[in-house]
Structures are given as structure tokens and as C-alpha cells.
């Protein structure tokens, strides 16, 4: 039998049910991998006792015949989800030591489904970043390395970079992520794993530390499409505590999985075929098209004419919302307080925020404050929201002629840490293919498509119409079955 830590969520669930191993054995195996992987810096806090307690409960439940959907499965929790009694920081100094007295809806649903927590996963500070280099708790190092003997430390993607690195390195079989402008899909693509951002509103935002509320959406990251379906079923569902939560039943996505795409149309957005597109990315995209054809789908060209405006619109809307959301960190109610000698209340606010926020967070707060300030609001913010309407209309029109859209997830494979930090614009361009679906609130996933010439994973992105996660998962499954992606990083950590 292969190592327990090599198993998928479905294999752990089913093997545990069949009595092939105990939940405690699974939790102990993953706990051991977590504690032996400090070099990756994927976890901010490790919670082996939480994983063991859930495992012991699962073993009891199995004996009593009262199994839950995720009984026996330990997972990683992005440190953006508030967890009762366990430090929650958003990877920022301003929240160091913050211990929530309440549990986020999504994490509570996962515990209610029987899952256990291996620890809180590192991320870009306040989920602002594409490389996990903005965390106050240090960079996450990707377990992947280029195949040419170059030992440069690579970015695991971001913002869910602790989640992606931990799954790729077999420290957890699945993890939560959040996606504001690609933060689930881009790290999944960089590390050869699978991740889905559902329709905006599927997963409750309650208890998730806010970045940009009209875009933030939780979703699972895992080794397979099936695992994503299993996790998403546990995470999704109506929550009266989130005013934008969708009041819809949660579909049985796992039971609905089918890679037979006969009668389905797959749209290829011509605007994504940009000049100078990386040759490896183009090759994997072409492979994806061939695989979906092989699965029975018809390939059609679609047009998303406002695609080139997605990133500029995003970099107005997301910082604007962030500047408002992050106003709450004032040194009064929780987190860091910096009170210089003789400082008044206003000085304390400014000193606390200067000391507690990292440079990228400050940059975005400043941009957001500027675009919302008197005299500039209409020129920037209102214009961006109008362009966002046009982008959503582009997608609606495209989906009149196709069931899902296939595109690359990222414009390149993972880059080295430090390679893009001096140029914020260059870093932002990483999310050029991911941001449009975020602005339109649509379900989108990344599945591994192949390797670059350097031996690094490349992802294929499937975007679906609102509420149709099933179509996205099914196209993802068709690709997964044909891509035969088995590559994994050699253990060096």
C-alpha cells in the first residue's frame, strides 16, 4: 500500500470507511509530514492536537456506525479563516496573537463534516499577493524546483501559497483557499494541484478576514477534481450571517461528476491568445482543447472583448474595497497597538497601522484611498465598476454559445522568489487570465495540464456560467483523465 499521505481525500475517506486504516493513523502520518517540512514554511501554526482529536472522534463514529462526509480526513486551513482559540493572522503583524472567540462558517462546516485541522496555512498578507512573498511570517517555498539542476527557491503562487505548497508536498490532502483575483487558481497551477473558486456567494464569507468583499470567495484546493467536489460540498451552503450568501441548495457535485462531454460546447476566448504568449502555456492550452474534443465536446471560438481591461479594473476595485475593509485595524479592539510616548488617539491609529501592515498592504490601502477620494471617485471607481458590468455582459454573451470556457490559468510557470518583487505591475500581470472570472463572480477552476520545459507545472483553467460548478468540475475531470498528470516534486525539504 502506498503511504497514507499520498492518498487523495476520496481514497482516505473510502479506505477509512472500509477499515483499511484508522483515522488516527492518517492524522499521525500527516502530522509527521507537517512537522518535518519546516523548510517550506507552509504553516503559521500547527495544530496536531486538533487533527488527532477529530481523528479519534472519527474512529469512535466509525465504530458506532455514524460516519460523516469527511470523517477521517485531516485538512489544512488557510490562515484567513477565523478559528476558535487558534491564532488567526491573515499573515499580518497587525493581527499577530489574535485568537478568535468564534469560528468562520466555512471552517465550522468542515469540522461538522468530520474533518480535522492540521494547522493554519501561510498566505500573502491579507491575501494581497501572487507569490506568498508579502507574509509577515516569511515566504512559503514551493516544493517544486526547476528540472535543470537550478536550485532557485520558487514561488508557490499566492495568495493561497501555504495551501498549494502543503498539498503539493503531501503535508495535507486538501486545504481551504480564498480567491479574490486568482488566489486559488494561480497557486494551484504553480504547484500541479487542483482548485476551484465557486460562484460568488456559494461559500459564506462570515469569519473570513475581508480583503475585497465583492470578490472574496472561498474554495477548496486538493489533488483531484473529485476531491474538490467533495470538499466544496462540505464548504458551500446558505448562511444568514453573510448578506451576499446564495440561498440555494448545495448540489451533489461528487455524484454528478461525469467526464462525458458529448453535446457540450467549449469556448476558447480569442482575446486570451495574446501576442507573445509563452510557448509552453500555448502548447498545454492546445493539449487541453484536444482532450476536451476527445471527451466529446465541440470547440467554438468566443469573444470576451473587455478582457484587457480586467486587471486595471481589478486594481481599482480591490484596493478600494480593501482600504475600506482594513480601516478596522486601529489598535483598539484587537491586534497590534503602537502607542508612541505622548501620542494622541489619531497618532496611535497611524502609528499602529504603519507598524502593523506590510508594504504591499500599505500600497493597496493608499491606492484605494486615492481612487475613492473626493474628486477622483467617478473617474476611477465608478468607471471601473462600469467596465466590470461590461465584462460580466461579455461572459453572459459568450455563454449563450458555449457551456464552459477553457483558458490557461497563468501566463507562465512559477517564477523564482524575488524575481518580481521590485515591480508591482509585473507581479499583478500574473493574474491576467484569472481576474476576469473573479470580476464576473463566476465559478472557475485550475487543473494540472502538463509541464513547462523547465519541468514545472502549468494549469488549465475552466470557467463556467454562474451556479454551474458542475459543468466546470466535469470539464476539469475530462482534462484530468486525459492529462495523466503524475509529476510531483522530489523531496528536498
Amino acid at each position, binding site marked *: 500500500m502506498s503511504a497514507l499521505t499520498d492518498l487523495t481525500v476520496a481514497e482516505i475517506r473510502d479506505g477509512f470507511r472500509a477499515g483499511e486504516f484508522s483515522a488516527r493513523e492518517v492524522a499521525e502520518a500527516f502530522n509527521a509530514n507537517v512537522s518535518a517540512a519546516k523548510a517550506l514554511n507552509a504553516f503559521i501554526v500547527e495544530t496536531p492536537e486538533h487533527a488527532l482529536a477529530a481523528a479519534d472522534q472519527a474512529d469512535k463514529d466509525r465504530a458506532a456506525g455514524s460516519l460523516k462526509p469527511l470523517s477521517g480526513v485531516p485538512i489544512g486551513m488557510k490562515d484567513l479563516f477565523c478559528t476558535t482559540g487558534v491564532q488567526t493572522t491573515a499573515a499580518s503583524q497587525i493581527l499577530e496573537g489574535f485568537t478568535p472567540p468564534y469560528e468562520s462558517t466555512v471552517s465550522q462546516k468542515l469540522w461538522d463534516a468530520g474533518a480535522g485541522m492540521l494547522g493554519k496555512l501561510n498566505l500573502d498578507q491579507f491575501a494581497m499577493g501572487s507569490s506568498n512573498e508579502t507574509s509577515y511570517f516569511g515566504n512559503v517555498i514551493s516544493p517544486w524546483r526547476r528540472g535543470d539542476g537550478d536550485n532557485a527557491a520558487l514561488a508557490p503562487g499566492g495568495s493561497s501559497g501555504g495551501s498549494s505548497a502543503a498539498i503539493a508536498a503531501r503535508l495535507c490532502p486538501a486545504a481551504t483557499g480564498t480567491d479574490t483575483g486568482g488566489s486559488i487558481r494561480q497557486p494551484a497551477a504553480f504547484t500541479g494541484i487542483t482548485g476551484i473558486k465557486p460562484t460568488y456567494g456559494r461559500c459564506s464569507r462570515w469569519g473570513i478576514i475581508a480583503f475585497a468583499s465583492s470578490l472574496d470567495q472561498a474554495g477548496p484546493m486538493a489533488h483531484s477534481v473529485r476531491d474538490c467536489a467533495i470538499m466544496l460540498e462540505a464548504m458551500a451552503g446558505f448562511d444568514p450571517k453573510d448578506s451576499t450568501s446564495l440561498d440555494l441548495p448545495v448540489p451533489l457535485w461528487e455524484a454528478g461528476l461525469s467526464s462525458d462531454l458529448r453535446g457540450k460546447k467549449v469556448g476558447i476566448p480569442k482575446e486570451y491568445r495574446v501576442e507573445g504568449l509563452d510557448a509552453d502555456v500555448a502548447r498545454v492550452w492546445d493539449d487541453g482543447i484536444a482532450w476536451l474534443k476527445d471527451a466529446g465536446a465541440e470547440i467554438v471560438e468566443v469573444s470576451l472583448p473587455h478582457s484587457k481591461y480586467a486587471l486595471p479594473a481589478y486594481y481599482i476595485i480591490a484596493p478600494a474595497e480593501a482600504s475600506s475593509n482594513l480601516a478596522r485595524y486601529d489598535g483598539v479592539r484587537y491586534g497590534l497597538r503602537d502607542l508612541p510616548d505622548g501620542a494622541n488617539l489619531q497618532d496611535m491609529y497611524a502609528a499602529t497601522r504603519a507598524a502593523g501592515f506590510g508594504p504591499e498592504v500599505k*500600497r493597496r490601502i493608499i491606492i484605494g484611498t486615492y481612487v475613492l477620494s473626493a474628486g477622483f471617485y467617478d473617474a476611477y471607481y465608478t468607471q471601473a465598476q462600469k467596465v466590470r458590468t461590461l465584462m460580466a455582459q461579455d461572459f453572459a454573451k459568450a455563454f449563450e454559445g458555449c457551456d464552459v470556457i477553457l483558458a490557461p490559468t497563468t501566463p507562465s510557470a512559477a517564477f523564482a522568489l524575488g524575481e518580481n518583487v521590485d515591480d508591482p505591475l509585473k507581479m499583478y500581470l500574473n493574474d491576467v487570465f484569472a481576474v476576469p472570472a473573479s470580476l464576473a463572480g463566476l465559478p472557475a477552476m485550475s487543473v494540472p495540464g502538463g509541464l513547462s520545459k523547465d519541468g514545472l507545472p502549468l494549469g488549465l483553467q475552466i470557467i463556467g456560467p454562474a451556479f454551474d460548478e458542475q459543468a466546470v468540475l466535469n470539464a476539469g475531470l475530462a482534462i484530468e483523465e486525459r492529462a495523466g498528470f503524475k509529476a510531483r516534486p522530489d523531496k528536498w525539504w
Partner: protein
Amino acid sequence: MSVDLTTVKKIASLARLAMSDDDAQALVPELNGILHWVEQLGEVDVTGVEPMTAVIPNTLRLRDDIVTDGDVRDKVLANAPQAEHGFFTVPKVIE
């Protein structure tokens, strides 16, 4: 539009971010680069287009006007940097 040192310092002050002149000066070219880049949105013809307010059509729900939470003062104060006598404590604001 472009920003200068005075504007960056004003915005930092509005955002309650203490900032040295050197840090503010370093932000000037960065912000101008980003602002210049986002200004390409001005090319888009948005005549008659409504700004987006809800990405997925949804109506705000109303609930009964009843108490659903509360009586958790100590929990609310548990993470405060400074709390006394059941209150958050801040530097004196009234002379």
C-alpha cells in the same frame, strides 16, 4: 492624473498611515506607474452602462428585528490591546 509628494502624504494621512518623507517619496513613482496603467480604463465607452453593484443578482434579505446575539462582553474584549473595567481603553481624547 499623477500624484506628488504632498498628495501621497495627504492620502496617507487620510488612510491613517504614519509615513516618513522617504517612504512617501518612494511611493510617488510607484503610484504614478499604477495610476497611469489603470487609466487605460478611460478608453472604454461606458455610455449608458450602469456601474456594477451586485456581481451575482441577489436581493438583500430582511430578518425579524429581534436580538440574535450579544451578552458576550468578555469575548469581545478578549483580544483588546488594553481593556479596563469592561471597556476598550484608548489615549485620552478629551482635554
